[in-house]
């Protein structure tokens, strides 16, 4: 496949990509630390993952195989447009199979299949600062990171338990990276947090509007904050997938008729199809 000659490879010009790669290298060297970068205008609106797209564009090579998911699914408008964007501007192969991809750009999920060495997971991040809602002054949040002064984050979790009897945070659940930096995992479900821990793949996070990049290198400790007597629990709906029968994947609730009928199915469509195929083969 070849890319549209009207664009530089992967849309961004080479000096912009070099600038972003420098930010990525710095982010990899300081796991969990937010590195500012000169975010460019992209031909997609903010909220469409312009941060993730710039990171992907900067690490993409002509032989890469790209997968893009949104809420676990490859065929939402957002995922389809981003895939089409890179097919056109970079001419790269795309896939819906997690196992075949070398780069996976994601919004809101981590694939169920264990990622491997050599793969890169690129997260689209709306709000990179885990302390943003607790401490509105940006200079002060930077100071808190510099001092590893994270008592405030525990106050938030304490308040959750005091109000709801348990930690009610189910998305963007804060993590400690490499026992040093507090990090927002982006709005993935808390269920996915354990997958970040010691992941063999490289994890890169791009926030376009906020102009921040951060990273978790392969095999890095990622720990969800909690209390000794209220340990972290990766919550999922207590059901089996209607399509593949899985009892250990993250499920979406789907309405099936207008009488309020609903079923639970895997949010990771590729994983679900793989399991269905295995089931059929076994029968």
């Amino acid at each position, binding site marked *: 496949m070849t890319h549209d000659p009207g664009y530089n490879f992967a849309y961004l010009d080479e000096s912009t990509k070099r600038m972003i790669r420098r930010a990525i290298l710095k982010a990899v060297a300081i796991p969990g630390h937010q590195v500012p970068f000169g975010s460019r205008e992209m031909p997609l609106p903010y909220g469409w993952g312009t941060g993730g797209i710039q990171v992907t564009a900067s690490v993409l090579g002509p032989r890469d195989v790209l997968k893009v998911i949104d809420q676990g699914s490859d065929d939402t408008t957002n995922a389809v447009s981003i895939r089409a964007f890179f097919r056109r501007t970079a001419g790269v192969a795309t896939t819906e199979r997690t196992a075949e991809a070398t780069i996976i750009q994601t919004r809101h999920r981590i694939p169920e299949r264990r990622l491997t060495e050599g793969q890169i997971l690129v997260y689209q991040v709306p709000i990179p600062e885990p302390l943003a809602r607790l401490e509105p002054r940006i200079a002060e949040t930077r100071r808190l990171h*510099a*001092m590893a002064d994270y*008592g*405030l984050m*525990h*106050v938030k979790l304490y308040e959750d338990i*005091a109000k709801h009897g348990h930690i009610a945070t189910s998305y963007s659940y804060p993590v400690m990276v490499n026992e040093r930096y507090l990090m927002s995992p982006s709005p993935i479900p808390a269920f996915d947090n354990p997958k970040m821990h010691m992941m063999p793949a490289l994890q890169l996070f791009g926030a376009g509007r906020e102009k921040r990049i951060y990273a978790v290198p392969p095999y890095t400790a990622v720990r969800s904050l909690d209390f*000794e007597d209220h340990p972290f629990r990766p919550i999922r709906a207590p059901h089996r997938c209607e399509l593949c029968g899985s009892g250990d994947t993250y499920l979406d609730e789907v309405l099936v008729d207008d009488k309020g009928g609903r079923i639970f199915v895997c949010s990771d469509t590729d994983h679900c199809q793989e399991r269905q195929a295995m089931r059929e083969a076994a029968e």
Partner: protein
Amino acid sequence: MSTPLMEARGLQLRFGRVAALDDVAIDIHPGEVVAIVGESGSGKTTLLRVLSGLMRPDAGAVTYRGQDVLAMPEAARRRLMRTEWGFVHQNPRDGLRLGVTAGGNIGERLMAVGARHYGNIRAEATEWLKRVEIDPARMDDIPGKFSGGMQQRLQIARVLVTRPRLVFMDEPTGGLDVSVQARLLDLIRALVADLGLAVLIVTHDIAAARLLAHRILVMRQGQVVEEGLTDRVLDDPQHAYTQLLVSSVLAA
């Protein structure tokens, strides 16, 4: 006498033409309550801020348990601020998180120094609410709804929960009704004696200084014009300004 917990010498700080601190020296010993009195604008708050490292002086030295406070990296100073030191603000709104429950306010310093057991944090918070005479049933309430006196008592609990050695208080009873002030002063006196705290307290109130302080420093225009044991300074003031200050209280 014991070696001082905190020592400052030759402190100078100017704001434009105003000498907020003009060659100030002070010692604070373990377990000692020192009151700073003086008219508005005499440099009392500035002195607290400089001693606690919140503000840099133009000249002078501050040491805490032998460490040079001014040369300390910010991380080390902040660690002191949330462990061995405490700061009680005149306005409790400056010292509390108004959107966080009373229990969370007390628990914050515990969590900042590594407490990770919810039940234990609750137990400590319950204990401290009782000590500052707040009904533990209010633990999950937001302090924004508390009365001024209650907010101030909560601020004190929040600061004392990690058992600091040295507490800076800037007019802790200012802005409260007279009857509420008296109760708060009694509470502070009892806690300070119980915990053996060293306290540096700024006050306009000579009666409060007499009640709480072992020693008094009188400030005027950035200088310490008189200093000594509380009874000596108040009963036998040497400096004309102190005489004026004491007599104006007697006359009132």
